[in-house]
């Protein structure tokens, strides 16, 4: 965030949230958003072609919340992710090649092929794992916060979860504990309007998940989750407060998943129009449009970033395919640590 030294970020008429992100950082942002999108498109294609088994949950359309919420994080900060976690994982710095390898169940995947899409973790990179249990990461984040505090580390933890997860008891218990102990946690709700097929309007009686922050005397902020600079600004402020001992924040990113819940989704619970309408709010194109409007990047420069991301993904996919399978003899390895 070198906004002071970067003149291009000071172009006139930019909103402060955009200006706060200098060009170098912005290039990283764009790269990651493209990586996420293209990673998931490639994963989807591999799945369709029967190269990947199991299931997967795509976050296409939600890239801004993943990248925005983690933009203020340091390498040693933590994230806890969800079943829809590819974006978080890439945003926190994971290598797509090892993520693909995990998808293909390969020995050099992030989890040595044992976890798959729903459990990708990159512990060294501060990603404490996707989670197959809706809301499962929320209480774990509390412990991470306790750990940070006890060890007097200058770190924060970002825990992602969905709108649906906010109806789990785990949400309530976690936010309460984080609040009473003033833990350095960002609770980032990616409200994509549905918990599987359940419209948030049927699943809860309040319009915003962030409205629930009141119950924990915690700041609750609603932000346009498809607006990267806005998400980044809100997260930065929350992270600063957390580091300063000000405790947790609940951030709700209003967004939308353009794909079905998982591969078995027939989209019976929503309309084509709704999907199309949200497609037009694509967080990547929207950011690119704003950047070109302010002449911070030329369309060509943007295209270069996108193409580089595509090349990276293509190479990553090749790497994964060429990777070795686990040895079945190792079946029960790593059940216990010694």
């Amino acid at each position, binding site marked *: 965030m070198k906004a002071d030294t970067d003149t291009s970020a000071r172009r006139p008429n930019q909103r402060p949230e955009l200006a706060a992100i200098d060009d170098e950082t912005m290039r990283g942002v764009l790269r990651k958003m493209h990586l996420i999108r293209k990673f998931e498109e490639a994963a989807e294609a591999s799945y369709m072609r029967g190269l990947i088994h199991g299931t997967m949950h795509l976050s296409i359309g939600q890239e801004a919340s993943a990248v925005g919420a983690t933009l203020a994080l340091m390498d040693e900060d933590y994230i806890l992710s969800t079943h829809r976690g590819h974006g978080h994982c890439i945003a926190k710095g994971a290598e797509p090649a090892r993520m693909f390898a995990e998808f293909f169940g390969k020995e050099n995947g992030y989890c040595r092929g044992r*976890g*798959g899409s729903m459990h990708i973790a990159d512990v060294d990179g501060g990603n404490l794992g996707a989670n197959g249990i809706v809301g*499962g990461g929320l209480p774990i984040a509390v412990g991470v916060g306790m750990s940070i505090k006890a060890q007097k580390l200058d770190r924060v933890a970002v825990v992602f979860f969905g709108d*649906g997860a906010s109806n789990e008891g785990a949400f309530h218990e976690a936010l309460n504990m984080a609040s009473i102990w003033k833990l350095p946690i960002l609770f980032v709700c990616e409200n994509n309007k549905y*918990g599987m*097929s359940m419209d948030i309007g049927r699943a809860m009686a309040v319009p915003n998940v962030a409205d629930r922050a009141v119950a924990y005397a915690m700041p609750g902020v609603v932000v346009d989750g498809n607006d990267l600079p806005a998400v980044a600004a809100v997260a930065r402020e929350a992270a600063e407060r957390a580091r300063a001992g000000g405790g947790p924040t609940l951030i709700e990113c209003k967004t939308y998943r353009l794909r079905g819940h998982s591969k078995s989704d027939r989209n019976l619970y929503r309309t084509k129009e709704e999907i199309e309408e949200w497609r037009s709010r694509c967080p990547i194109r929207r950011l690119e449009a704003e950047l070109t409007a302010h002449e911070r990047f030329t369309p060509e420069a943007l295209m270069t970033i996108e193409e580089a991301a595509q090349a990276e993904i293509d190479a990553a996919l090749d790497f994964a395919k060429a990777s070795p*399978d686990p040895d079945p003899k190792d079946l029960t390895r790593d059940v216990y640590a010694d």
Partner: protein
Amino acid sequence: MSTLTEAAVESAVRELTYAEAIREALAIAMEADERVFLFGEDVGVYGGAFGVSGDLVHRFGTERVIDTPISELGIAGAAVGAAITGMKPVLEIQFSDFVTLAMEQIVNQAAKIRFMFGGKAKVPMVVRLPGGSGTGAAAQHSQSLEAWFAHVPGLKVIQPSSPHDAKGMLLSAIDDPNPVLIFEHKLLYKTKGHVPEGDYRVPIGKAAVRREGRDLTIVGSSIMAVRTAAAAQKLAEEGIDAEVIDLRSLRPIDFDTIAASVRKTHRLMVVYEGVKTMGIGAEISAMIAESDAFDFLDAPIVRLGGAEVPLPYNPVLEKAAVPQEEDILAAARRLARGDA
């Protein structure tokens, strides 16, 4: 229950999938009894994560096929409350792994209320639990946790292996005045089999002898009953005559059927997908080993259960973690030929 009408004759050849059979049972029960309702996550317009409820919401409306928030503890408790006040809830826990969030209500409340209240209440609820591995869903979406519930007095636990039994046992479960947990293996949902029309019941607490044999008894539960039956065919070709018992009911266990078989064959093997240690095979083995059937045993009792490992994502490892037909064959050969 079932009467021999023309429909029944026609139905003698009717095939349904396991998922369809369950749906049909639900529809029959809901049609017959206003108190029956279905609820759970995405059971409505989505039709259930595995398509089991299908179009039921369109047939019975949103008051009787109820989508719930993602709140497993809460919905289990809601089932208890509805059951003790005159309703007959059928709850779907989307994947049986998520029952870990609902144990309190199922074990501390549903199972105990009748007893704690001195017999003054009934808890007629059914919990449907899709479980098992084989779909690449990894460690948190592939468990077989049924053994836990077989340890809990006050609960009944069933695990039908065929479309026929799925329908007949679910109808029995809905009619039962006690909490019944039905574990449905995800890989079975698309399997097909003969399912009679109309209302019929398969009793809870009775195992089924799927194949008679003299050389050894193999008890299998859920999908393992299917794999065991297939293995027994091959064993027969090799000259090994296996008696195959489909367990079907885990609490109560049909000890008599198993013991009678052991007295005949003198050899027992139990096949189950749950983790071997403390799995249902332990109970069956122990039941036999403490009974007078013990004296008939000519060889150690063999348990073929899941490996001591969380379910791996990698498909090769995933298969290696639970008994496959080849494993049953190999173990049965060892047991029958006495080199176990």
